[in-house]
């Protein structure tokens, strides 16, 4: 049997792939991991909420040295998705400081990590430039 599985639980696949956050019903804080309580207000009720699929690159680095087996260079960054900060790689963009710039507009994009032994395909996510010319701006 074949199918797809997201790299992480907070990635929702389908026609419109997007991320979901756990939102604290008390203070509105957003989280991506399994929660015991809200780190901000200690409440224990959460609801799933979709995260905007477009955002602004707020911080990045171009990693040239990583653990053996991790392909380099790659761009790691933090994307402000309409108020929710998301960690992710900048993909579909040359990994150099001429093409990757603070403040650039990005959108969520998915890619395949390949099938496992049962044929299930894992799907990862990153963020790609919305406008190809955006990344080329000096």
């Amino acid at each position: 049997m074949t199918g797809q599985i997201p790299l992480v639980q907070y990635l929702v696949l389908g026609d419109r792939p997007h991320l979901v956050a756990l939102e604290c019903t008390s203070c509105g804080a957003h989280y991506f991991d399994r929660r015991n309580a809200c780190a901000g207000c200690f409440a224990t009720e959460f609801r799933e909420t979709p995260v905007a699929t477009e955002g602004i690159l707020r911080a990045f680095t171009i990693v040239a040295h990583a653990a053996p087996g991790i392909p380099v260079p790659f761009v790691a960054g933090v994307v402000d998705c309409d108020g929710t900060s998301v960690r992710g790689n900048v993909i579909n963009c040359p990994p150099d400081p001429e093409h990757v710039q603070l403040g650039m507009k990005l959108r969520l994009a998915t890619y395949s990590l390949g099938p496992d032994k049962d044929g299930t395909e894992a799907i990862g996510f990153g963020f790609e430039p919305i406008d190809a010319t955006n990344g080329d701006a000096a």
Partner: protein
Amino acid sequence: MSASDDIWILGIHMTKFGKHPDLDTVDLGATAIQGALADAGVTMRDIGIMAAGNLMGRGGIGQALQKQVGQTGIPVYNVSNACATGATALRTAIMAVKAGEVKMGLAVGVEKLAGAGLLGGGTKADDGDTWKPSGRFGAVAPTDGRIGTETMPGVFAQIGMEYGHKYGGTSFELFARISEKNHSHSTLNPLAAYSKAMPLEQIMNDVMIAYPNTRPMCSANCDGAAAAVVTNGATLKTLSLEQQRRAVKVSASVLTTDPWEEACQVLPNVNTLTRNAARQAYEQAGVSPADLDLVELHDCFATAELVHYDNLMLCDEGGAVDFFLSGAPWRDGRLPVNVSGGLQSKGHPISATGIANIWEVCQHLRHECGDRQIADAKVGLAHVIGLGSACGVHILERSAA
């Protein structure tokens, strides 16, 4: 001369940082302890509590050290707080003295890190043969390199870039210039792991680790240890005039963790907990940033030094770039920062760092710093960050005796 419950550094010592192939962790830690005791003019018999830090070993470093320098039966607290481990050990000893449980405490931090390579995300877990969710994110495969980076140079690169996004004015060259300053400072420090000046071009053209941090812009993994003896004002008054003259007052001792804020679990926020620690420290000490004669701050990467000018309030909010460009943090500037050479050249044997930076400030306040003495230094600040996070800030003042 002072309140009886004031806290004083009675003696302090750091080993040379660098490669010590012939000394093991215990040898290095013991050397630092014996140096601190001799500097303090006391013995292990005088010490009521010991706090010890070492991250790379198998635990129990405090007891292992006692077996080499003196087993007197006192309590040992083995502490661990990432790169803030040394400051945590010192703070533990200070709290015990301040609580009145002991008259003297000993803090030590030691690490063997020479040749350790990349820290954080240094090993890649293999993909399994079946995509199966596990862990708190329900990940079916390792995420380092797929969802951002876990390497320290990469994390701190983003922290510097984030500052640039918020306030502007940063560039690869600016961060490299910060590194140029610290490497230049290190030429006067015989205990630094690396003490060669590096021209800006050389720094920028060196091996890129995580843009914008090249290799010389990253803290140097090395071996080293540091230890300190602390006491209270009442006890100090019973000691010799020479001990009183050389003692350095701990005007503030603060440890904080990162309070929750949006994004703090996405990219570590090293800013707010540093700002909180600094604010508390200035208030405790009754001094302002303008009163400081020197600062040793946690430049684990060139990108980190920039943000801490702001976090420690050495400049106006958002003004770190201008502060640096004004020349202020150079050793002949208005407020010298990292005259030791900082972690980028002095080196960063993790658990030793949070005591070694106190040693540097003490040497200046005691006017025993030789060629790199900051003239007439009276007040200094030492800062460390351990990612995760913990922040230690100590403000130190020269004895009035």
